[in-house]
């Protein structure tokens, strides 16, 4: 996927280097395509491999690491979730929080992978927040009694488009953690937050 994305961008940059207007096309298509492939890759993998339908399978970590993690910007997810507390952490602490929080997210949400067997994700459209920089791809997860609206917020960085927030039925992941992080930092400081994250990860 990353390779595909890079080639999309390679194409955009290579061919359209002197045709500025055409880059508009690349910027609206790319994030939507990224989300579509992200969804298709993961659901295909789960359907093809019965082992992945068992939430306890060690193979899930592999799929998550290969297909999902590279498309998420954990640095930015953490930074947004920390809000103004981000500046209170030293660079070493920031690195530690990004690492631990990334582990917490991948570990807990890996458990949901197995259920994707009978679910499909349909891309409904893209809302451009800042052209070529910040967009929200709206999707619907179908296959349950009622469809679930899932929005992926993506930002265009040096490594291409990456997801920095996921909003499920109006609930933003970043917003949910920001309050928790804020509460913990104000009660026990940045180091207290790191301790809680580590403990949660069993490290």
């Amino acid at each position, binding site marked *: 996927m990353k390779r595909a994305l890079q080639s999309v961008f390679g194409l955009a940059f290579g061919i359209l280097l002197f045709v500025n207007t055409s880059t508009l096309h690349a910027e609206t298509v790319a994030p939507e395509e990224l989300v579509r492939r992200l969804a298709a890759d993961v659901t295909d993998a789960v359907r093809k491999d019965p082992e992945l339908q068992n939430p306890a399978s060690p193979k899930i970590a592999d799929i998550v690491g290969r297909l999902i993690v590279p498309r998420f910007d954990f640095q930015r997810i953490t930074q947004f979730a920390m809000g103004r507390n981000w500046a209170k952490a030293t660079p070493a602490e920031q690195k530690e929080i990004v690492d631990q929080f990334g582990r917490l997210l991948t570990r807990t949400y890996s458990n949901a992978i197995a*259920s994707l067997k009978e679910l499909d994700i349909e891309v409904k459209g893209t809302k451009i927040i800042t052209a070529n920089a910040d967009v929200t791809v709206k999707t619907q997860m179908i296959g349950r*009694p*009622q469809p679930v609206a899932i929005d992926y917020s993506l930002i265009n960085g040096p490594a291409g488009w990456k997801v920095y927030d996921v909003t499920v039925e109006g609930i933003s992941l970043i917003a949910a953690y920001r309050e928790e992080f*804020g*509460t913990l930092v104000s009660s026990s400081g940045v180091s207290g937050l790191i301790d809680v994250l580590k403990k949660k990860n069993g490290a």
Partner: protein
Amino acid sequence: MRIASRLFLSLSLLCAAASVAHADEPASPEAASTEPAPAFDPIEPVNRATFALNDVIDMIIVNPLVSLWNGVLPQPVRQGVSNVFDNLDDVYAGVNHVLQGSPSTAGADFGRVIVNTTVGVGGLFDVGTKVGLKKTYGDFGQTLGVWGFSTGPYVVLPLIGPSTLRDTSGRAVRVVTDARNLLPSNTSYALMGTEYLATRADAKSNENLVAASSLDRYVFVRNLYLQRRAMLVKTGKDIAAGKAQ
């Protein structure tokens, strides 16, 4: 009772954004980078105690019953039971969409009730969705929000879980007007108990996800609940203003 439990219980996955002051504002694109005001939770110590009490009740009574429920009833039966209660909810969704000034959504809600009650055998099957009558969420707390009432303080209700003063008022309206009040009280309680259990069983995997991913579960659940409610009010306003669907 149904709306209440449904909400909360389904709450698990669902359920906050921000404070009372900001709760009803549309999420701005910059939301990710701005600092939200803290949740309005003036009785937090009491709420935390109720939250802990609910955990104890869950552990001792609810979880074993949910395991039994899931273990004894096959998935299609459990789905059928949920559908019957959802069908009753659609009546209230319709009433609320009328109150919110969204008559066409209300029409679809009542259309669902008619189709699901007849072709869907008393609500056991959700035929409405299959014929294009989409389920739209609607409750009295949301209606108060659409009318411009702020959420008021956050409260945790015994057994039911997260709520706000506004949503508790809405829930009270629902309980008082529930058609099941016309039934003999034993039947009515049995139905409420079944509904509660069905809702909790539906929500279990989400509740587990919340427990696994949160650092301070009380804060996390409060945030999810308030975000979810703010979104439902915004959706209600958007539909009434003709901006959505």
